[in-house]
């Protein structure tokens, strides 16, 4: 369980709710009839064995896939079809299971790219790189530097991300998502492929993000220990169906979860 302190999440408003969502690809069911909600300020984990439909769920939430059935309500607005950039504008950011950074750019530029939707200077000012364009560049650079400081990646600021070790790439990717100042941050296996120390660092960052920026976080994670330590509430999927939903303790005791996940995985 997460250390005490901070607001009691159980009374937070619902930020996003997923109602009866089903998704299939050419006859293959990825998710069927799943409902759950994410409350403001909480860290919500989505777990389940491989192929449980976790990533598909995230893809539905940020508009990359459109569910055949069901609806999603974000900040009180129900939507039917949404493009990924609409999700971005709405305040949803995410990271990917296999780091999806802009490989030809530096860490700094990657994070700056996360600020794109907050920058407005028009093309002609951009041509001159003067006036609003320069002001904006400077102002957002400052915000980005705060994130760089927060994630302790000062030394790699100017390094093209393709040359960074995996753990740092994950951190830069988190930085890019943070740069969007999202209300809801989706993390797809943020600790996949990391060693113990890196995992601890990343856990720390996730908690700090939640704490410092007050960002609501939904994360997929394989490492049960990490999930139990980090999250306020956990939803468990298996073969596209929700089998449990509750606090880490409740979920740990749930027989269906033990059968489906814990028993199988370890």
């Amino acid at each position, binding site marked *: 369980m997460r250390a005490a302190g901070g607001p009691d999440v159980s009374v937070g408003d619902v930020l996003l709710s997923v109602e009866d969502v089903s998704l299939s*690809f050419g006859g293959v069911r990825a998710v069927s009839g799943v409902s759950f909600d994410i409350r403001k300020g909480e860290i919500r984990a989505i777990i389940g064995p491989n192929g449980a439909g976790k990533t598909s769920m995230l*893809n539905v939430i940020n508009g*990359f896939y459109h569910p055949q059935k069901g609806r999603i309500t974000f900040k009180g607005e129900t939507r039917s079809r949404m493009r990924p950039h609409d999700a971005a504008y709405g305040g949803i950011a995410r990271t*990917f299971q296999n780091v*999806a950074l802009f490989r030809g750019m530096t860490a700094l530029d990657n994070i700056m790219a996360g600020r794109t939707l907050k920058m407005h200077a028009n093309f002609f000012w951009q041509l001159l790189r003067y006036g609003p364009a320069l002001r904006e560049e400077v102002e957002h650079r400052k915000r980005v530097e705060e994130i760089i400081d927060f994630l302790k990646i000062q030394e790699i600021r100017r390094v093209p991300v393709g040359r960074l070790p995996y753990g740092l790439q994950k951190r830069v990717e988190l930085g890019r998502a943070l740069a969007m100042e999202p209300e809801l941050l989706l993390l797809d296996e943020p600790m996949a492929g990391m060693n113990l120390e890196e995992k601890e660092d990343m856990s720390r960052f996730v908690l700090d993000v939640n704490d410092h920026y007050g960002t609501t976080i939904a994360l997929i994670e394989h490492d049960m220990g990490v999930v139990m330590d980090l999250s306020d509430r956990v939803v468990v999927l298996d073969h596209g169906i929700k089998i449990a939903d509750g606090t880490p303790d409740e979920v740990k005791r749930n027989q269906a979860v033990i059968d489906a996940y814990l028993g199988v995985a370890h």
Partner: protein
Amino acid sequence: MDLLYKIFLDPFVQMGTAPDLLVQTLWEGLVAGVLYSLIALGFVLIFKASGVFNFAQGIMVVFAALTLVGLHEHGVPAYLALALTILVMLGLAFAVERLILRPLVNQPDIILFMATFGLTYFLIGFGELIFGGETKIMIANQLGLPRGAIDVKLAGGFVSIQKIDIAAAVIASLMVAGLAIFFQRTRIGRALRAVADSHRAALSVGISLEQIWVIVWFAAGLVALTTGIMWGARSDVSFALDVIALKALPVLILGGLTSIPGAIVGGLIIGIGEKLGEFYWGPLMGSGIESWFAYVIALIFLLFRPQGLFGERIIERI
């Protein structure tokens, strides 16, 4: 109104009133399509096995034809020249594997694509330097290819069919059939198909990637030689022919980059569509639309089916 009539009605009226012209046009389109198909076939072979989009395929056609004619000009007997040309194409396959593919292994597709641009330019320069830049006549007779035309009576008119065209269609069909058998029945063919699926799978069969590359490039070279002979027999042999290489690109788009049937069907569609377009609609626009008509067909097609006729649907994963 008049323009709409000219575009949407008049051509079809013409087709109906002069079916002989229509059939003639269709036949010419078919033959052109067969040749397009052959070039596209060379592309597909290489693309399937090595993921390389071989821009130089068209130039290989010209290069092969030029070598054949050039050798003959230097007094080499026709069939010996043919054999030597086949050897040259084998050498080219080895050279390409050694000097381009091997050093560039694991590079992004676009880099390999660019490399074939380089190969294109090199082959143009090299071919002209050795054999001269002037236009040459294909040694069709010496190779025993038929000449002359057969006239078929049709609906009060003639349809004139060149024997060489018939030969081209037949040889092309044989070639495709041969390749199909090669792929389905032989060990190497199966390995090639395995490569298309996964490089590791091929390695486990016990054939090195390098060997496979040589084989496909040689196969593509043979296809190019055949195309070159046929095309050269219909017109002349010169590097102006490289324009047909560019023609093969819309064919590929239509057919999909990885599909042999796609290459054939796409080639025929483009060949026929282009000739019909040129004959019936071209004059409306000042003619010469052949140069871009195929592309427009392909482009429109792409907007609806980006993966091509026979290509596999791309599902993007993140």
